[in-house]
């Protein structure tokens, strides 16, 4: 499953966005990922953010602040992103389980220093931001109008291997 990472970004300007906000528990009775699609970020209360709005519909990248994905271990959180075509999250830091779930699903949870995150947020003030990700080169490029910024990111060799293998089940099954 080769994926394309990057694309139009949506900006969630808050720290500690938890997995109950990403996908509320009342939808955990679903046993397919597809069924989660309409409920992404339904309970997130954030000024300027509309869970039913066009910006979220269009986005394939989420940009947030610190400790993204804290709380419940539900993998429904990355899945609800996945079924909405969002394979990339960029944040200053993550909760451990969410971060691992993203890589386990073959998706990207990229960590950038606060200063870089600030820069990307600042670009959003001038219009839509498009992100492209170079997974081999550990580089991402943010473009907004005539502005362009390039950032380097770290990814552990294990996490990279998971993304390349298409997730942890494939990786583990070949290896153990």
């Amino acid at each position: 499953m080769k994926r394309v990472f990057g694309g139009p970004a949506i900006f969630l300007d808050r720290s500690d966005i938890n997995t109950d906000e990403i996908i509320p528990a009342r939808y955990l009775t679903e046993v397919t990922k597809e069924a989660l699609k309409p409920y992404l970020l339904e309970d997130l209360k954030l000024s300027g953010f509309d869970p039913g709005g066009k910006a979220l519909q269009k986005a394939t990248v989420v940009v947030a602040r610190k400790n993204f994905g804290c709380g419940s271990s539900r993998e429904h959180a990355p899945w609800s992103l996945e079924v909405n075509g969002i394979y990339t999250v960029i944040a200053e830091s993550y909760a451990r389980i969410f971060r691992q779930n993203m890589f386990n699903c073959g998706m990207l949870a990229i960590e950038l220093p606060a200063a870089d995150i600030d820069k990307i947020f600042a670009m959003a003030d001038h219009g839509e931001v498009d992100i492209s990700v170079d997974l081999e080169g550990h580089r991402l490029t943010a473009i907004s109008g005539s502005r362009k910024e390039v950032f380097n990111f770290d990814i552990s060799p294990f996490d990279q291997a998971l993304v390349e293998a298409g997730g942890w089940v494939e990786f583990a099954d070949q290896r153990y």
Partner: protein
Amino acid sequence: MGQTIAQKIFAAHLREEPFPGTYVLDLDRVLCHEITTPVAIADLEWRGKDRVFDPNKIKAVIDHVTPAKDSKTAIQGKILREWAERHSIPDFFDIGQNGVCHALFPEKGFIRPGFTVIMGDSHTCTHGAFGAFAAGVGTTDLEVGILKGVCAFRKPQSILVNIAGTLPEHVYAKDVILHIIHKLGVNGATDCVIEFRGPVVDAMSMDARMTLTNMAIEAGGTCGICLPDQVTVDYLWPFISEEYESKEAALSDFKKWHSDDDAEYAKVLDIDVTGLEPQVTYDYKPDCVKSAREMAGTPVNQVYIGTCTNGRLEDLQQAAEILRGHKLAPNVRGILSPGTPKVFREAMDQGILAVFMDAGFCITNPTCGACLGMSNGVLAPGEACAATSNRNFQGRMGKGGMVYLMSPATAAATGIKGAVTDPRDL
């Protein structure tokens, strides 16, 4: 350089280090419930890999929504039930025998010092109370655990929390852990194991230690852990008496897991609980904590006592002590969900359930229940609940609802007054 208990457990379970800093561990326990496991089962089937690594190391329970409330939850239960049967998993707990996973599995003696444990549930950190490395994981990790008996982790760093002093009257493990989360912050322990030590922990029962370790995840911790001691041995003795000649022998064996004196910690936090007051959360994050007196007078519509944090016998005893001879305030709905059938039975035998009923509580079967707003006890928008659970996230107990986290004693006092009340001010 000495090792922490977590590092010792890692070393004893290391399958391989596929990349520097990534540790693939052999698992002693893979625990399952009906919310996160059915998706793993479905995916394994879809991949043509519907197998389990060892049915004796897998334990499963239906606990979040039981009895089933609708077709969807009935299907989740059915998938888990049929899977347990198909793979001859001997320890599967269904209605009549079921209870909240993190209360039930320890009570059955499934968790031992030095074990590695995963579950598709963030509060798996609870099991660290026994000196195990126990971590919540997502469905994919759970899936690989079921199939291969392994899980990958980053190198464990530990935060040492030393708890000294004397707990004042009506101040409990719940107040201590809320205070610690307030100090650490909701991401203060991310990628770390929180090691709870000190005289206050030594004096705690296993019930109280589980309340402490249960909320390690609320500070972002991978696991909360206590060093196994005489209290651990006494608790486990009915399950281990054939493996060890004597309790002394068990204790000396368990001690091999103790952190070395020169072990290295990412951070050390010294807490003195002597002046600690009953604690209550405000807002929507578990590190937003004030004293019950600062929060006094905040009205509530519902009181919920139970959950993996505070649904054990000692918790019910502490609430009953406050409730005895009192009634819930008019317009306050009281719900008690004992953690397990054993807790239910013992609380019944001790007259504790009668105290709750006399106060006006409704008593449900052992289940997660109101904790996460997907079963019973859901709040209406604008309502508030005094809860002994562990999460006060926006919408957690129902869309537009508010949750105040507190100890069973504070929740009981709050129910009696209909507004947040310090049990000492009753």
